[in-house]
């Protein structure tokens, strides 16, 4: 992965330079945006609900035992907003959308469709990479906001219904509102924006670098997902350090 970092940065830079083309590519951006949302919304919903539920289930009984029942809402709220929703949604999107991007562009590369674009003087970065990167950069933060809300709901439902926790719905929300500030949600959204850029540019780069036949496409898909996840985790640490200040 690390030998390709230079190429990945170069592709990202070329995509940034092609931003003035964004309006011309708006239909493709919208199509990709719809594709990402449509493919992921239900999964985001299920994943977030159960992540919120699990945090409430893991922390609730321990805190209640020590007389800290009022902290459960805050813990679920903060952990979903600042860490779990951005990272888990990014990993989900890397698996679902990053793999699809790498496979689609990789097969276009293998079957000479990208060569055909270049012979027509159509820049593959403008035509293929820019719409995907813009779409994912908008879609992932939106999915994360949705995931945060559903995760909070999951935590609240479990805190209310589980007999070992038994924190009323209203009390859970009151504590969550006390602890979680808007900047915590903004923190998570900013992280997810950075993760979206990582997934988009790594997946498109892997697609464009595909060589060989179907096996090459398979290799590219695997590398796109694995490299995206590794970079997401590394950047998560770095961003957390920066945002803590």
């Amino acid at each position, binding site marked *: 992965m690390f030998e390709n970092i230079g190429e990945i940065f170069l592709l990202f830079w070329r995509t940034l330079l092609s931003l003035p083309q964004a309006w011309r590519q708006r239909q493709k951006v919208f199509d990709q945006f719809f594709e990402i949302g449509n493919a992921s919304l239900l999964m985001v919903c299920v994943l977030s609900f159960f992540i919120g539920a699990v945090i409430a289930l893991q922390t609730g009984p321990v805190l209640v035992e020590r007389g800290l029942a009022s902290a459960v809402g805050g813990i679920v709220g903060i952990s979903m907003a600042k860490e779990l929703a951005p990272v888990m949604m990014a990993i989900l999107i890397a698996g679902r959308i990053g793999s699809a991007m790498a496979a689609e562009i990789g097969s276009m590369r293998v*079957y000479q469709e990208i060569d*055909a674009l*270049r012979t027509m003087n159509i820049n593959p970065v403008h035509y293929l990479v820019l719409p995907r990167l813009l779409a994912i950069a908008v879609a992932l933060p939106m999915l994360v906001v949705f995931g945060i809300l559903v995760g909070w709901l999951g935590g609240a439902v479990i805190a209310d219904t589980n007999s070992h926790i038994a924190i009323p719905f209203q009390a859970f929300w009151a504590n969550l509102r006390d602890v979680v500030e808007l900047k915590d949600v903004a923190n998570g959204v900013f992280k997810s924006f950075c993760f979206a850029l990582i997934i988009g540019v790594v997946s498109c780069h892997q697609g464009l670098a595909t060589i060989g036949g179907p096996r090459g496409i398979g290799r590219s898909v695997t590398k796109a997902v694995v490299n995206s996840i590794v970079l997401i985790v590394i950047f998560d640490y770095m961003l957390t350090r920066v945002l803590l200040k």
Partner: protein
Amino acid sequence: MNSSTNNHSGVSLQVCGLRKSFDGQAVLRGIDFEVQPGEIFVIMGPSGSGKSVLLKQLIGLEPPDAGEILINGESIQSPEIASKYRLAMVFQSGALLNSLTVGENVGLYLSEHRLKPPEEIARIVAEMLEDVGLKGTEDKMPSELSGGMKKRVAIARALVIEPQLILYDEPTSELDPLSSVVIGEEILHLQQRIHVTSLVVTHDRDLAFGVAGRMAVINEGRILTIGTPDEVKRYNDPLVQNFLHADFKREP
């Protein structure tokens, strides 16, 4: 569209000392030839002789290690070439964009470069598809087409550019004899109608001798001979004669 295509003519192509290696293995070992404007020039050779690599260099998809490619005397590496001359390539596989319909594929150049309004593009696409015998296929997906139809759509897509130089990579590979004849006739028809310079790379002997104005035989990255089809047929070299007359011999 037809009236405008008649206003342009083919370009000349000069290739001098072209060399290309991959991982130290020489694929092109010094290729020299020249194609006159409006000529159909055929490059023949067995599989693996470097024909497709040569085409990629000619259209600018890969840079050569050494040598020069000149379009009307200007280097193909020059940044102005793409805007100054209209070059097109028909790929061996057709290379149609599978996510687009036939109509969108054919009109892609015009729509992406915003050269015509959508209604005008639709009209041109319909006309081009009719020209290659595929009227009414605009809404089909490439996956619904046969190999021969895909090749003809690829030709229609190349024609939309109103090319001055068109490169064909194995245009009849994987096609039945009837479809091969249709493609060969289409290449001749285009040359007569719009005087485009055509460079056809093939190992199909019938196509090569059927359409060539002049031809070259290439083997292991070197040109063995260049001339008219009759001159090449008479060229007394065992490699060339073996290639031209290779035939299946059945034991009695």
